[in-house]
């Protein structure tokens, strides 16, 4: 396999062509923060938290959506990037109602963990006055739009892994929100197989198992990645035959 040589935070590594900077950084032992990326799903570069600086390029680039290149000199943790990530996180908090004290995902929330990691203990933006209704119409799962960070992991897990295409995104700007089927209550979405992959993929408490209470999130986010990895192995076997 053809490879390239690059530096990530001063560490020289070799990476196969086609790998992205986030994957290469992970192999180099460098963790780049992110919310929308999940192994096994396609890349969208929606959250912009994994932005990195590449010497010679004027603007930061999303690590998850930038392929490795020969002789790249990548920096993942500069004062500018840290400030950028903190502001982004604050905006995510300000857009929703992220009340950890009442959230099923508290203690197992990627947003909460990132806030702790990046030192976001206050939100300097005024939250919107809008109130978003919870959708509890599904017999097994609930959806709280006020906790959604629009990472679209659920949309991709539903489409790419389950093949149901139940979840989609509607609206623009601050009005952007998830919809089930063509905007029906989740419980009425005929395409939904109730597989729960969307709930498993959710980085926050926006999608949850009904009947669970604060800090009770039990599903593992690795589920989708594990399934896709196993499927890849299965398809390799098909090829080998």
């Amino acid at each position, binding site marked *: 396999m053809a490879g390239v040589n690059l530096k990530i935070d001063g560490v020289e590594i070799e990476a196969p062509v086609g790998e992205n900077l986030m994957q290469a950084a992970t192999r180099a032992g460098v963790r780049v923060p992110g919310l929308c990326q999940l192994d096994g799903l396609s890349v969208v570069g929606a959250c912009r938290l994994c932005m990195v600086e590449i010497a010679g390029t004027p603007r930061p680039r999303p690590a998850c959506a930038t392929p490795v290149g020969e002789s790249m000199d990548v920096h993942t943790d500069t004062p500018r990037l840290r400030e950028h990530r903190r502001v982004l996180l604050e905006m995510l908090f300000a857009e929703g109602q992220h009340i950890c*004290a*009442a959230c099923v995902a508290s203690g197992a929330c990627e947003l909460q963990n990132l806030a702790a990691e990046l030192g976001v203990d206050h939100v300097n933006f005024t939250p919107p006055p809008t109130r978003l209704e919870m959708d*509890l119409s599904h017999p097994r799962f609930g959806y709280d739009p006020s906790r959604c960070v629009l990472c679209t992991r659920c949309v991709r897990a539903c489409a790419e892994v389950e093949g149901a295409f139940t979840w989609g995104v509607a609206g623009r700007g601050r009005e952007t929100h998830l919809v089930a089927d063509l905007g029906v209550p989740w*419980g009425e979405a005929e395409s939904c197989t109730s597989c729960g992959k969307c709930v498993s993929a959710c980085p926050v408490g926006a999608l949850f198992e009904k009947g669970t*209470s604060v*800090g009770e999130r039990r599903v593992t986010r690795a589920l989708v990645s594990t399934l896709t990895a196993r499927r890849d192995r299965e398809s390799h076997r098909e090829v080998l035959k």
Partner: protein
Amino acid sequence: MPRTLLIDPVTRIEGHAKITVRLDDAGAVQDTRFHVTEFRGFEAFCRGRSVYEMPALTARTCGICPVSHVLTGAKAGDAVLGVEPPPAARALRRMMNLGQILQSHSLSFFHLSAPDLLLGFDSAPGARNVFGLIDAEPEIARRGIRMRRFGQEVIAALGGRKIHPAWAVPGGVLGNIDPEAVERLRAEHETIVHDAKWAWARYGELVDAHPAEVAAFGDFPSLFFGIVSPDGAWEHHDGLLRFIDAEGNRVGEDFPAERYAEFIGEVADADTYLKSPYHLGAQGGAPVGPQAPGTYRVGPLARVNLAERMGTPLADAALADFRGEFGRVPLGSFHYHGARLIEILACAEQLGELLNDPELGSGPLRAEAGINRLRGVGVSEAPRGTLFHDYRVDEDGRITGVRMIIATGHNNLAMNRTIGQIAEAFVKGPDVAEGALNRIEAGIRAYDPCLSCSTHAVGQMPLVLRVEAADGTLLRELAR
């Protein structure tokens, strides 16, 4: 010229309040008012949330009794699911409530009220606090702190943390008690019972030291209200609701939580965020004026007055002494302190029974169910008195309406009347002595009010005292 006194803020209570004392032309007390000056609105913003979130959401009403809200919210949730939690879960919930009452009463008595009671109402304000108490009476301060810590440890052993443990959920509880903590608590338990007995033994001395305060701190006939066990014993969590009159006679039959609205009405006043609940049976209509016939009291004194017995040996002996000394139904709100000490003893003893129960925590801890009822009422005894959570939900379990009636609300009419009584006894004209203001505050403090809960509001409890002329002109304002 008529004048008004204003105590603003009231200190060493939970929340924000002020007190207005209006004087007539001759300088005599004409009218007194207790105003709660903050508002939070949990009843509004919980709408639209899942019923499963309610224990945790409402716990944030207060940092002192989050446990009471968690337990009551979970009970209202049980009613929505239409389930009874498994026996092990019920026992553990009871245990947490006992820990909560023990820690909160210890805080109220030893940290907040003991400085007045032991150092004197006229002692120097700068030292009239828990630190002054530590200097003057180190042993009582030490034991008070120890009892409070023990109660907090019980809560932490169950909920994993001392404050805001979102541990009780509709249908049961999230986790079992930590077995190592049970060992630790068992080892310390005897000391706590001993401390509680020792503290109760000092109550008679406090009453003897403050005859004027005992007489003026809300000594009037009223109804009393709270939970009793089905066999009439003292109860704090499961049981029926009972009203008694000032002679100790039952007013109507005991009733279950979901029927509370048949017996309790609420009025709102323009000058305070704290509503005034009243007993509907009294004269049909809403209460008018401080002598309102529907006035009732809740909390330690009410629970002790309601009970036919406490149910544990030392607490029963204390109750017999209490009644022997002050009558079958002590009416003075000063005796809230005594009742609190008896309850501390009862909690300590009952916690011992639970800690030594070999079945503690065995069996299922949670009943699972969907939404089976569109309304659920939960009731529990918070340290300060009876707490109601009344939820209405849609078929998906989303909250469509919330009503919370909090202990301090139940006591609002009685607190107003108490302030009037103290002002009449200790305020003569506008040049009010600091000690008189302190007594007015202490009269409120006897109820151990939690204004953050009762208006669902936040903050310290500074109190402002306003002295006003009959036309409302401010003559003097004392703030801390």
